[in-house]
């Protein structure tokens, strides 16, 4: 028989205002096994924990129930408390009477009765708890960063700096990501490439960093400290170790009609290509779908041109298997597709562009050499209209329900840069709200209005259409309460951003939680913002939520710090709530093996002593280091031989019984 102590927390007024804690204490005292019960204002406080420790010693408690906030908040705290008093930490159960009770019910009697039932269920469970001992697992001292944009680069550099090996997997032929495509950065107007490319060079030069560009993560197995990852390195058809990046092949390549992805498809590129001058690695790749050699078997001009003999048309995709202790998601974002926003003519008129396209047009390495020109006739525009919130804050199903966060600031930047370089150009910005929370952000926006004369008009654009060869914008000025019809030469759409399309599949592979918008969920929105709830998976950059560059870099550094903290450990304690097979009940039928996602179950022939009958039987065996404790096997097992420690059949049924009493 257990001797159970029950500790009911008031959580100040969070619980006590709705739940009569004294009544809960009285009620649980009548439960079998309960030897002691009390309440206190803050059980998690130093004083509260002392009450628990003292009671454990004084009453020789064998198990405790804390009726408090969610176990997700303080289960770990109270387990430590129990351990400090000499009790096995797994003899602790939490009855969640705050999130699941006091915070959602108003009627005090109702809430109190529910709290009593939740406490009774926890008591019933503890009655069947058994002490559990955590195992140990090793840590592979190497990290994987998925994504080679500024987030991935910063995380990898920080991890490498601490002396750990780190690999970057980037799906594009070069690292750099979106930041490499930007012209200037707000609010300082730094040249984006000038601040990014030194970091890219650092990555290439750092001996702790291995780069896998033009590569994708194919499969992830394992768990914190021991991930096993399959990486597919796609064939570049150019030998990375030989190519010098001289670009001679590009000048000779006759297939010049590929869309230049780096310039958002605004101009063309050759089939053999280096995305941009500062690409890392500075190595060409061949777009096999475009290459004449691959399509017809004839050509081979690049091979003839290359003095380094780097071209290899027979190169195959390479599969790389590596072990990692930690994985960082830094998969970034894409602007959304605008096919559902026909009213802005984006797909029909070349002078209606996205903000990212404008970045390329403004950039000296871009399709117009940095001169602001209309893409339709390469003429100088006399007026440019910006439309904000295109697809952001949209719950109609056409766009994204969230604020993309970066658009207000980059639009102010674009407007300012245009007015600065071309004072003759009239710039109008249609906005719903201008959001500028950030250091020097509002000052920056005000400068655009006050110093550079950008017209900010509160109101949205209803439609854009073409009339007599020029663009017309029909909009509203909400402050003047007027409908406006303006002629303009260019329209720039502040397009909503969404997580990279690869995020969902990767999250599935990593078993990281992901929300309905495909942002990866953090372990706690306030207190653990760079970790996934899945141990060993960390989040860096926009994959977790919209962010600008400074925020991304801070988060990248924070994720690196968490990774370093993990890799610095030699051993990790494992979850002791793992499956266990009773060899006397096991039929050896192999059904459990089939549903185990970790390959943790194997079968051995074992001599058993079944009530005096000695025989060799085929029985299931659980590798406790591999088992993560999901319990899929326990339900597959018809005889009930397979059970889950900490969540045994009898424990769960005891909870059911207590609730239904």
């Amino acid at each position, binding site marked *: 028989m257990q001797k159970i102590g029950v500790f009911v927390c008031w959580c100040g007024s969070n619980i006590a205002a709705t739940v009569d804690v004294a009544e809960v204490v009285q009620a649980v005292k009548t439960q079998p096994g309960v030897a002691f019960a009390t309440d206190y204002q803050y059980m998690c406080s130093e004083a509260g924990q002392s009450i628990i420790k003292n009671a454990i010693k004084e009453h020789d408690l064998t198990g405790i129930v804390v009726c408090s906030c969610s176990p997700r908040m303080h289960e770990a705290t109270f387990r430590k408390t129990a351990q400090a008093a000499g009790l096995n930490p797994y003899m602790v159960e939490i009855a969640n009477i705050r999130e699941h009770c006091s915070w959602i019910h108003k009627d005090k009697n109702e809430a109190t009765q529910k709290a009593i039932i939740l406490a009774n269920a926890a008591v019933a469970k503890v009655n069947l708890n058994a002490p559990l001992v955590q195992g140990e697992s090793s840590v592979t001292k190497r990290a994987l960063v998925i994504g080679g944009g500024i987030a991935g680069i910063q995380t990898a550099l920080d991890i490498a700096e601490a002396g750990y090996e780190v690999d970057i997997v980037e799906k594009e032929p070069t690292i750099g990501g979106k930041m490499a495509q930007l012209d200037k950065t707000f609010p300082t107007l730094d040249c984006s490439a000038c601040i990014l490319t030194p970091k890219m060079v650092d990555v290439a030069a750092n001996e702790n960093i291995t780069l896998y560009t033009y590569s994708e993560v194919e499969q992830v197995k394992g768990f914190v400290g021991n991930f096993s990852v399959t990486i597919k390195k796609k064939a570049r058809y150019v030998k990375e170790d030989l190519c010098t990046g001289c670009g001679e092949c590009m000048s000779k390549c006759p297939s010049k009609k590929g869309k230049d992805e780096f310039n958002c498809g605004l101009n063309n590129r050759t089939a053999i290509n280096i995305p941009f001058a500062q690409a890392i690695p500075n190595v060409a790749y061949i777009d096999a779908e475009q290459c004449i050699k691959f399509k017809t078997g004839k050509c081979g001009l690049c091979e003839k041109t290359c003095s380094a003999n780097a071209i290899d048309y027979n190169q195959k995709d390479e599969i790389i298997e590596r072990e990692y202790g930690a994985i960082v998601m830094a998969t970034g974002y894409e602007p959304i597709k605008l096919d559902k926003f026909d*009213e802005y003519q984006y797909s029909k008129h070349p002078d209606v562009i996205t903000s990212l396209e404008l970045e390329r047009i403004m950039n000296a390495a871009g399709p117009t050499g940095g001169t602001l020109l209309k893409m339709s006739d390469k003429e100088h525009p006399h007026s440019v209209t910006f439309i904000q919130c295109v697809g952001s*804050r949209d*719950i*109609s199903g056409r*766009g994204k329900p969230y604020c993309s966060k970066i658009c207000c600031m980059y639009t102010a930047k674009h407007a300012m840069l245009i007015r600065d370089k071309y004072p003759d150009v009239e710039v109008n910005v249609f906005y*719903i709200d201008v959001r500028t929370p950030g250091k020097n952000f509002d000052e920056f926006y005000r400068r655009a209005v006050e110093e550079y004369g950008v017209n900010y008009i509160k*109101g949205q654009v209803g*439609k854009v259409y073409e009339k007599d060869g020029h663009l017309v914008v029909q909009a509203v000025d909400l402050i003047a309460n007027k409908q406006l019809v303006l002629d303009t030469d260019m329209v720039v759409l502040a397009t909503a951003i969404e997580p990279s399309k690869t995020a969902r599949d990767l999250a599935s592979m990593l078993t990281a939680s992901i929300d309905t918008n495909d942002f990866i969920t953090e372990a706690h929105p306030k207190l653990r913002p760079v970790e996934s709830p899945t141990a060993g998976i960390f989040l860096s950059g926009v994959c977790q939520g919209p962010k600008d560059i400074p925020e991304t870099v801070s988060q990248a550094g924070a994720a690196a710090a968490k990774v370093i903290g993990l890799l610095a450990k030699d051993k990790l304690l494992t979850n002791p709530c793992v499956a266990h097979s009773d060899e006397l009940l096991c039929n050896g039928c192999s059904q459990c093996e089939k549903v185990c996602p970790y390959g943790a179950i194997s079968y051995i022939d074992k001599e058993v002593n079944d009530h005096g009958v000695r025989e060799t039987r085929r029985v299931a065996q659980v590798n406790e280091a591999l088992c993560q404790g999901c319990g899929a096997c326990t339900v597959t097992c018809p005889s009930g031989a397979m059970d889950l420690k900490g969540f045994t059949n009898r424990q769960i049924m005891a909870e059911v019984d207590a609730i239904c009493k």
Partner: protein
Amino acid sequence: MVHKSLEQACLIMDRSGVDTRKCMMCGKCSATCPAFDEMDYHPHQFVKMVTEGDIESLLSSKSLWKCLSCFACVERCPRGVEPANVVEALRVTLLRRQGENYITADDIPGLLDDKLPQQAIVSAFRKYKK
């Protein structure tokens, strides 16, 4: 006091099936509206006025009858607010106040004949069922 009549606001929201509080005042409805210049109150204003319960001003406005029911505002609203449905609810409200031509849904079947266009029947039910 911002709220003129919460009760009236609820009545219109109920009748139109539109939750006007979802509006974020972007003005896209007014930017889109082909009848904007004819109106005294504009689409984004209707929505705001319903939220605030200022129904009486709306009922006496000519905007109510200037709306073409083209549904461009419904189509483009990023918040799913459906201003045109608000207009329809306001029209119905006004219709119902005129005692003489107020009929109940039960009266309609008796008024139907074979030649009546489908659209008219549906619209009659829509008006009087609300």
